[in-house]
């Protein structure tokens, strides 16, 4: 089972001992108990790889607890890093290389079919000879279970090796692993050292120094004992690149957009945006207000927007539910507001650390009453940065709420993107304090667009009371039908006017074919990779990705008409035809599919999964093959 190591002792392996595989796409998972630093290790490895010119995508595997019981398959914590010669847009399929800190965490991944059948596994082997017989039995049972697959298992005495450098190997094993990875993938050690120093910049210099020694120790050990290396050719990038996760991109995007107040309440997986903002925002003249609850976070941001520049709040599904009444108020009073919803699995507390796209319909329709507003979804980490300026501008021009739907996949995914060419024009202008000319009213709706000029406190002659009650152009409470019809129409017309400025989304692939796959948000990379592979197989498949969900862009019905079948791909629940009681009529469909059916009257099918993980391109490819209409070109 365990592979006999090709070299022993201090002998440096010769070229004959080591096989270097040249590949253009390779993923590695590092799995451990919580708190052992697998994620930190993977993040540094990913950043170094990006800096060396590889395409990179990392996804964190996070248990919901801070410190779940150790050595437990359900508590596996870790990270997947996918490297490529070209830009990588998603986490890929099954992983080919795993570094496991214990066999139970590994089992967790094995049971989720996260590993390729022929994956190579480097595993800490101290458990095999552990003094506790129960642990030794668990190890044996795990090895038995793992032998179902054709894994190549290499035992590594990580803890023993670390003891040469540190007293407590549990803290620092991750840097030893980083050293092994650096050897396997031939990473630049100087870059690794610099990245470690940056990662631990807030800790004492001893931490960095110790980590450097562990890095070197892991590198040396791998060189002395392993018989395989991977070479992933790099592409020369003409553009300068930056590498970060989606939440960091949202935080920097908020700064670039000129947003100056973020009100929030801690919630996974949105919170790291506020960590980031808490670190940098105030140096830019911004305030991060940690409110007493989700509702207060909405209220404070609305109060801030009301009296000056557009503010924003950031949350996830359960927080969105709590903010609902306030969103209605902002829409009714026409106060600009940006709301970032980093989606997780639901309903209720659901899967706090895992990805889903199930807030879509709630984001669009979730406010009681008719509450027209804009919903926009970034599909990449780069878009997470730019969407904030877009959202802020739309919110201010339309005087309404703009909901930005990100998700856990983007939040923790790390990938390089072209460094933005910053422009001061992205910033909002200072609040207009000029007096209001006589005769102007706080809701002088332009009958064509529904847009009116906002008065803010401090403007002489603009004194009025905004209210969530039905009101007329003067903001006077009005219960009569004519005013209510007019005001409802004007609020809705803003969306129609805005929609007229959108272009039909581009089709990825031919504009005619057998099957059109439609997606939105973070699934773009996986869908397009699957479609590309399907097209290489000769299948007449294309895809379409939606950035605006409310209002929907024009031209969808026309685009759909050129395909025999249209199908959404979503990280959402849907009933399967063929399951008990399920018929075409009562089938509960994927959320995007509901939306598109209603908007286009096209019979849009769906393929959805709620696995608590990002979609794998290989699985989407399978769905494409299965769903090609009969008699298609394939």
């Amino acid at each position, binding site marked *: 089972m365990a592979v006999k190591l090709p070299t022993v002792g201090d002998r440096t392996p010769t070229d004959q001992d080591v096989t270097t595989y040249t590949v253009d796409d390779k993923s590695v998972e590092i799995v451990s108990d919580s708190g052992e630093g697998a994620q930190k290790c993977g993040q540094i490895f990913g950043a170094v790889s990006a800096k060396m010119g590889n395409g990179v995508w990392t996804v964190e595997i996070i248990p919901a607890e801070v410190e779940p019981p150790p050595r437990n398959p359900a508590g596996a914590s870790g990270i997947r890093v996918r490297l490529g010669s070209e830009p990588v847009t998603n986490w890929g399929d099954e992983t080919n290389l795993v570094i496991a800190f214990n066999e139970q965490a590994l089992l967790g991944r094995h049971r989720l079919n996260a590993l390729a059948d022929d994956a190579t596994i480097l595993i800490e082997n101290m458990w095999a000879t552990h003094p506790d017989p129960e642990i030794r039995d668990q190890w044996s049972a795990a090895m038995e279970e793992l032998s179902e697959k054709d894994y190549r298992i290499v035992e590594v005495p990580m803890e023993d090796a670390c003891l040469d450098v540190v007293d407590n190997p549990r803290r620092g094993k991750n840097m030893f692993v980083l050293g092994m990875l650096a050897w396997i993938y031939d990473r630049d050690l100087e870059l690794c050292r610099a990245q470690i120093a940056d990662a631990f910049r807030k800790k004492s210099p001893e931490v960095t120094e110790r980590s450097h020694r562990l890095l070197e120790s892991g590198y040396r050990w791998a060189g002395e004992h392993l018989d395989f290396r991977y070479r992933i050719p790099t592409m020369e990038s003409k553009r300068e690149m930056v590498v970060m996760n989606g939440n960091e991109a949202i935080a920097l995007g908020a700064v670039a957009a000129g947003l100056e107040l973020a009100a929030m309440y801690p919630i996974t997986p949105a919170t790291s945006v506020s960590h980031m903002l808490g670190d940098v925002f105030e140096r*830019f003249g911004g305030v991060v207000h940690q409110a007493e609850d989700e509702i207060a976070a909405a209220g404070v941001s609305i109060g801030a927007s009301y009296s000056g520049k557009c503010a924003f709040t950031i949350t996830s599904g359960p927080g969105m539910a709590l903010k609902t009444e306030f969103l209605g108020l902002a829409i009714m009073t026409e106060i600009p507001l940006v709301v970032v919803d980093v989606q997780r699995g639901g309903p209720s507390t659901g899967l706090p650390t895992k990805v889903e796209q199930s807030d879509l319909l709630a984001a669009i329709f979730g406010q009681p009453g008719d509450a027209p507003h804009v919903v926009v979804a970034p599909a990449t980490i780069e878009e997470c940065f730019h969407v904030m300026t877009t959202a802020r501008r739309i919110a201010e021009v339309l005087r309404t709420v703009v909901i930005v739907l990100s998700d856990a996949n983007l939040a923790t995914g790390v990938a390089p993107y072209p460094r933005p060419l910053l422009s*001061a024009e992205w*910033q909002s202008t200072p609040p207009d304090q000029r007096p209001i000319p006589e005769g102007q009213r706080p809701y002088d709706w332009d009958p064509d667009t529904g847009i009116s000029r906002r008065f803010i406190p401090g403007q002489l002659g603009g004194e009025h*009371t905004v*209210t969530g009650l039905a009101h007329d152009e003067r903001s006077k409470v009005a219960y009569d039908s004519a005013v209510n019809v007019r005001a409802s129409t004007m609020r809705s017309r803003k969306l129609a006017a805005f929609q007229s400025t959108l272009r039909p989304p581009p089709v990825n692939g031919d504009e005619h074919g057998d099957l059109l796959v439609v997606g939105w948000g973070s699934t773009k990379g996986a869908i397009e990779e699957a479609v590309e592979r399907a097209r290489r197989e000769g299948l007449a498949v294309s895809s379409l990705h939606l950035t605006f969900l409310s209002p929907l862009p024009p031209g969808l019905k026309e685009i759909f008409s050129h395909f025999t079948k249209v199908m959404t791909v979503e990280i959402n629940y849907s009933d399967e035809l063929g399951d008990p009681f399920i018929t075409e009529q009562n089938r509960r469909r994927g959320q995007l599919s509901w939306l598109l059916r209603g908007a286009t009257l096209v019979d849009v099918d769906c393929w959805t999964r709620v696995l608590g993980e990002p979609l794998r391109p290989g699985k989407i490819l399978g769905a494409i093959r299965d769903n090609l209409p009969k008699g298609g070109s394939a």
Partner: protein
Amino acid sequence: MSGESCGLLHAARDDDRVFDRVDYEGPVARWCSGCGDHSVLSAAQRLLAEKQLAPENTVFVSGIGCSSRFPHYMKTYGFHGIHGRALTIATGVKLTRPELDVFVVMGDGDCISIGAGHWVHAVRYNVDMVALLLDNEIYGLTKKQTSPTTPQGYKSNTQPRGSYLPAMNPLEATLGITNASFVAQTAEWIPAHLFATLKAAYEHSGFAFVRILQRCPHFTADIFGEAAKQPDRVEILEGPGGIRVEALDAIYKNKVEHDSSDLAHARALAQDMTAIRLGIFFEDESRPRYEETRSIPQHSAHEKMELLEKEFERYAV
């Protein structure tokens, strides 16, 4: 509140205006006749005139309920929000525009029930504003339901056999919140005391919480309606740091000696809900104010972009 702050935003205005009470008067209030809200509205307008507050730099924020219509009847900026959440909106206003004068008007259901969480935290934030709790001990707008301050045994449409539990004591509770800096109680049927209390609250630097005992002629006429006819039931707090209204001496003879810096004595006085004790229970201007700790450096758009470029260096590949 420190009314003398004058931000750059309105420094350019040539301001020799003189304001009279009518300059703050909006449309005629639609409250019932005999409602205590009228009295508070009148006192607020008088305060703004006395302090010569520019209407465009004054914001009244409210929640939902009878008293929350208040901003509509002022000729200033106003925000009639949602039930229980006025304090959150007001906090947002002050965080971004500390130079504005902000008043919050809440009812007992608004502040003590649905908005209780925000009340507790607003007291602790100690953001510079005046918060008025207009407490008639009943839900009025929705037609007589028990509120947290409804006296035990008092009958309502939701608790027709009488309120089951002892009434919440807003003064005692507020005095128990960490970082409370100003807690006072007054009564709308004693306009001179009401005005003096609002004035002291406005002059306080920090979060000034004022509970205003208030008649509801429709639903709790027998609570404060009766009390208003019995000056003997009222005890006026007097002493260091307190307010002194000589004109009331002839009618309100019961006095309680109290130093408003004495928190323990304030709590002891607040505990007894049978006595109607009016005055400043506690004041301490040395308490930290949240918006001061959050004062932010101002940068031009270009400066911010330069800072952002530096930030991107950390992420550069």
